[in-house]
């Protein structure tokens, strides 16, 4: 029942298929092999093997532990014997003179003994002459700093463990309970605690250390303003500045995106084939868009910073310029796809050109316009974070500076959480607005648009 052409016997077919599958195999191997070779090349070019050795686990540990913990410094000035206690060692986290947390018992007079309880038996004493650290399971370490002879350390007999680092002028001990550093000038104890200390109120606020209930009752009795003020102006966490930074970032994204939309719309008409009869002008407009996009927001930021100086306006303008290029391209493509029938219908009533655009064109491109604007509003929130890091504005600057100066990882964590929340909120908001504003266009039309492959990608 098989009807085969003369030269298509199963035998020749098999040969053909063998060849076909051989080719397929080749292709199937060639593509992944090429990718693999490329990745191999990248691996070598990026020195990934060496990377593994360079990974700094210690940094990772610092980073991770610092994001959820804080340290309190107890510092003795070896020259005058004065002792100060400060959270994170910062002035704004310092305990008032003569005041200290319960685990530090200050001497009555300057130079008197100070005992620092690091718990679990770890005890540090700042004596008149020497500093002692009693380490359970190891023994007592004594260090005597002098101007002339440096730091003289007395350790229990035996090898020096690797968590103790001794040199002529310096002694450093790191244990699970805390850290002690002694140099000729200073002796310093760090004790670590979990949590984001002083997140709500700093030490100088009367509300520091109160429970939520207490704060609420005080708020109810008319101190709400003061409480909010103390929280808002918290010197350690600077909630007000952070809120402003977030607002600046959102402002850059908003002004930049909407401004770009407003500028790009009329320009897009010049670049659209069906609205701009003059070829060379169209060409110029298109290359202009390419130029704006190609230069990239990063470089626009630098260029504009000279004219406008640091600040959110510069960032907004950089976004505006870049996105004018992007929107110009998208809008002109949308304009080229408009349905001529509607425009003709309006034209046949004797409508003026502006009216033709208003009723024949605008209603058609509104959905594209709005959805693209909203998409970019969301993605520009991210861009604004980065641009802010360059122009000096917004949460991006706070974040990059906090990372670069490499302390305060808890603030880094705080900013990162805020940024993620901000971007996700904008994502959700833009999605919600898109659904609300373009509801005439049901799911079906949306699908169709996507099937055309016209869907434009957002950065």
């Amino acid at each position, binding site marked *: 029942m098989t009807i085969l052409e003369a030269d298509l016997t199963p035998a020749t077919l098999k040969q053909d298929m063998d060849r076909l599958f051989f080719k397929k195999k080749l292709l199937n191997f060639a593509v992944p092999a090429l990718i693999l070779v490329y990745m191999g090349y990248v691996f070598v070019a990026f020195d990934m093997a060496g990377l593994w050795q360079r990974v700094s686990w210690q940094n990772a540990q610092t980073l991770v532990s610092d994001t959820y913990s804080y340290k309190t410094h107890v510092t003795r000035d070896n020259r005058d014997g004065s002792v100060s206690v400060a959270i994170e060692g910062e002035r704004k986290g310092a305990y008032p003179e003569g005041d200290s947390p319960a685990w530090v018992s200050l001497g009555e007079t300057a130079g008197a003994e100070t005992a620092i309880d690091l718990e679990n038996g770890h005890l540090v004493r700042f004596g008149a002459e020497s500093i002692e650290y009693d380490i359970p399971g190891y023994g007592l370490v004594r260090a005597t700093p002098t101007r002339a002879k440096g730091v003289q350390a007395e350790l229990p007999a035996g090898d020096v463990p690797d968590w103790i680092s001794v040199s002529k002028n310096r002694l450093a001990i790191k244990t699970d309970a805390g850290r002690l550093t002694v140099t000729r000038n200073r002796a310093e104890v760090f004790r670590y605690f979990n949590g984001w200390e002083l997140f709500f109120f700093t030490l100088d606020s009367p509300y520091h250390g109160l429970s939520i209930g207490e704060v609420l009752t005080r708020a109810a009795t008319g101190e709400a303003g003061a409480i909010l003020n103390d929280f808002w102006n918290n010197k350690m966490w600077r909630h007000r500045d952070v809120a402003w930074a977030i607002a600046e970032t959102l402002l850059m994204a908003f002004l930049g995106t909407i401004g770009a939309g407003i500028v790009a719309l009329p320009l897009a008409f010049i670049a659209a084939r069906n609205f701009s009869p003059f070829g060379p002008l169209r060409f110029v407009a298109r290359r202009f868009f390419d130029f704006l996009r190609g230069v990239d927001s990063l470089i626009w930021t630098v*260029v504009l910073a000279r004219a406008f100086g640091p600040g959110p306006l510069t960032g907004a303008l950089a976004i505006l310029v870049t996105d004018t290029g992007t929107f110009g391209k998208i809008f002109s493509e949308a304009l080229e796809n408009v349905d001529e029938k509607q425009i003709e219908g309006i034209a046949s009533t004797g409508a003026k050109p502006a009216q033709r655009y208003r009723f024949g064109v605008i209603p058609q491109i509104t959905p594209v316009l709005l959805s693209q604007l909203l998409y970019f509003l969301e993605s520009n929130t991210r861009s604004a974070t980065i641009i802010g890091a360059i122009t000096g504005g917004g949460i991006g600057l706070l974040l990059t500076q906090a990372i670069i100066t490499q302390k305060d990882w808890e603030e880094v964590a705080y900013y990162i959480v805020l940024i993620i929340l901000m971007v996700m909120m904008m994502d959700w908001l833009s999605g919600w607005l898109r659904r609300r504003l373009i509801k005439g266009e049901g799911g079906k039309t949306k699908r169709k648009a996507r099937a055309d*492959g016209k869907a434009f990608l957002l950065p």
Partner: protein
Amino acid sequence: MADLTAAPLTTADIRAQYGEMTRRKRLYGGIILVVFVALMMAGFRTADGRNAGSFYDGITHVFDYPNEVLAEASEKVTELPGHLVNFFPALIETLNIAAASTLVGLVFGTLLSLLSTRGMAPWPRLIPLFRRIMDICRAIPEIVIALVLIFLLGGGPVPAMIAIAIHTAGALGKLFSEVNENASLKPVEGLESVGSSWGQRMWLGVIPQVGPNYVSYALLRFEINIRASAILGFVGAGGIGYELKNAMSWGQGRYDEAAAIFLLLFITIVVVDQISSGMRDRLIHGAKA
């Protein structure tokens, strides 16, 4: 000849209803317009106020910086070819970062999208989890991951690559899962009935259907990633962005270098943009045929 409807509305009713609707629309439209304009104005004024230079003073100086750069670059135009050669390796590094992160992002994006599409996911109950993972990957700006990784791994291309790859995986994953939703599940069921594994079903049943779309989106992403990797160079991740930042911040005296680097970057972005949009057109139309 009038249409038969259940509710016999008189013209007066319709007039009243429509009039009411128009008035409401105009009111809302007016309010929205006013609010929008007010928001724009207030936003502009706030930004202007918090900026060092004001918009009106600055607008006349927009070309100062480009002029300065161009003046020096044109003065030393003979050195331009040499600079172009010098900085080419840095450009290659930037392109490598973009390409490698796009590839890695493509792989993870594909996996995430398959894991979070109904009908394809091997563990349907975990779909929301994978969706959230994609959302978070997308939400973190690359610069954040890059800076943290630079702290851990030291400067260089790898932190940038990982940072961009994470973002790419999230962004592509979302787009791919939309593509997947339009794919037919019949071949998948056909393959399931012969006792194939999940990997085989996806590779042989889904990927051939969605492949062209995937590649098209990945190309677009590659374009975006070139910019991203250039930007990350600015914060210490190597490549052309690093060179550009150094030349630009040195300023006078090295503007010729800055111009050369800028030229390289600009040409690359435009060329890749053109090539990839050509390829995307072919892919999508080829897929349709």
